[in-house]
């Protein structure tokens, strides 16, 4: 497998993992909202909290993690140049 192909395979897998986590925080939790809401966090009902703050914060952390890890993948394959445009 060429360098380019293995980079793309890793990039694709990284995308799928990221979207799986995204799916959990955006869909799965709220599929069971009614029972999740019986639990509590910082005194807030949990499903209310996830919708108001929790999932939002998870997305912020997730995208930073996604970008950092993707940069590592790029560097490993020699695609990590800083300014490549001009």
């Amino acid at each position, binding site marked *: 497998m060429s360098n*380019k192909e293995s*980079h*793309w395979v890793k*990039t694709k897998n990284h*995308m799928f993992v*990221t*979207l799986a986590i*995204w799916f959990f*925080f*955006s*869909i799965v939790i*709220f*599929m069971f*909202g*009614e029972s*999740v*809401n019986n639990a*509590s*966090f*910082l*005194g*807030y*009902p949990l*499903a*209310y909290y996830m*919708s*108001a*703050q929790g*999932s*939002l*914060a998870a*997305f*912020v952390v*997730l*995208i*930073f993690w*996604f*970008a950092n890890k*993707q*940069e590592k993948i*790029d560097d490993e394959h*020699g*695609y*990590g*140049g*800083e*300014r*490549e*445009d*001009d």
Partner: protein
Amino acid sequence: MFKGGFISNLPKIYGLYTGGFIVFILLMAILESAGVSAANIGIMFVAFTVAIYALIGYLSRTIQVDAYYVAGRQVPTVFNGMATAADWMSGASFVAMAGGIYFGGYTYMAFLVGWTGGYVLVSTLLAPYLRKFGCYTVPDFIGTRYGGNLPRFCATLVLVLASFTYVTAQINATGTIASRALQIPFELGVWVGLISILLCSMLGGMRAVTWTQVAQYIVLIIAYLIPIFWMGSKLGNPFPHFMLGDEVQRLADLEASAGLIKNSAADMKAAGVPGGLKYISTPHSAVPAGGMAVWSYLSLAICMMVGTASLPHILMRYFTTPSVKSARKSVAWSLFFIFLLYFSAPMLATLSKLQLMDPNLPTAIIGKSISEVQSIAWVQNWSAVKQVFIADFNGDGILQLNEWFMRGDVVVLATPEVAGLPYVISGLVAAGGMAAAMSTADGLVLAISNCLSHDIYYKIIDPKADVRKRLIVARVLLVVIGAAGAYIASMRLTSILGAVAWAFDFAMSGLFFPLVLGVWWKRANQAGAVAGILGGLIAGTAYLIYVGPKFMANTPWLGIDHLRFGIIGASVSAVAMVVVSLMTKEPNAATQKLVDDVRVPSGRAILGKQH
């Protein structure tokens, strides 16, 4: 004081700007205590901030094509994040979101999840690849990837439809705020708003819009957070975001003891409740029971997420970063800056609801005698403009929860007054709302005019046009589109064009799959893309007309109402695109090579620096 270029001095420049703005707020506070009237403070707040944006717009003027279309591709990661956040958060986010949560509770918060979760799709599926492509506009990508003028034209159609739906609402919001703060008629306020918007964008295009949006973000976030922290400390919660658990529980108890009664439409009509005013009938934090409630939450969140990843005025912000790497990071910063406002909105709704409902607080009105409530100054002010209303249904002279009506926007606009904060805070909130509406309107008007001037005029009508002519056409279109938006807003036709949610649904119906599959599926070809764009757009629009309350108003299928028609549009788009692509010939070797190149994050952009 400023060594080096403009870009390397950005932190210093915006640091000074923020400091200057805070000094201005303090100055206004001093003037207020010296006896300057509330009305004059409101005028100064709006006039001063708009003048600063116009100055930034003038200083960023340019005659370069790549500066005009993509800010010269040199916007640093964090600043592009701030600009995107301002571009993203509209007048609706700023003024209406907390009110929506106030009345809609948990179900409404699907918007919060949708409008943030969408950025995960932007960063994983699209932004880095579109940046590598090096396009000027979103249809530029579609046109080059699939080849030929037809896909480019179809993508332009979706872009104009989605963005124009959105922009009239924004111009309407600038008009409302300008008319209230400057005390001029609404129709005039709309044109004042338009001129402010054009001052920011006309001379410098994307470059000017970028640097004004950063300035507008700073104003809007300060204006949103100060009242929340101030009110929180007044209630003994200096950091309300993490300390309101007990208050949320308390609201549930108060709701239980007051009872959430639904008024009949006939009663409300008989009492003369003005249109658009709402009352609390939904629990604040409880999750509604049943599978249908779950689906209505999830379907709304899905529409907003997928729509976010298809909105051209957001995607084009990531064309302005220096590299693929910085485009990716910039999405993360964008969401961080958006998050600062969004995770505060539910807390604002909680605090302001508690202030009206909790009998232990001096600000409470529910459970008091109606004559007493009607003598409160802020109730009188907002009743006079028909933003709040009291109807004593049971005739006992006591204000019950279902007898208090209020427009959602009042939650943000009147809360400083309700909590007894000085007027300078209300002036600040008006400036924040103006910044939010203007920054979004700027981004949208520019997205439309750039697309028409680049994709329709330059790429299709006159490919030999020189730089000067292209930029003149771009500016003329900017003025024409802005004026068309303002004209529709001033005729108050905005309600006909419908909700902001429609823009997301249009965008996801026509653009999501053609964009994503363009990067992730090499087999996607021209015929498939055209089928995907037109199929999605036609199916979505037809369904909107079928269920839309102002059109045929049929019963929605599976609870997919007019806010969620993108579900139908995008599904049809995906199927049409895949089926037609597979039925026709695979794309030629050059196109496949192009897709391969897009997937490599380093190296030259596919399209030249100037094209």
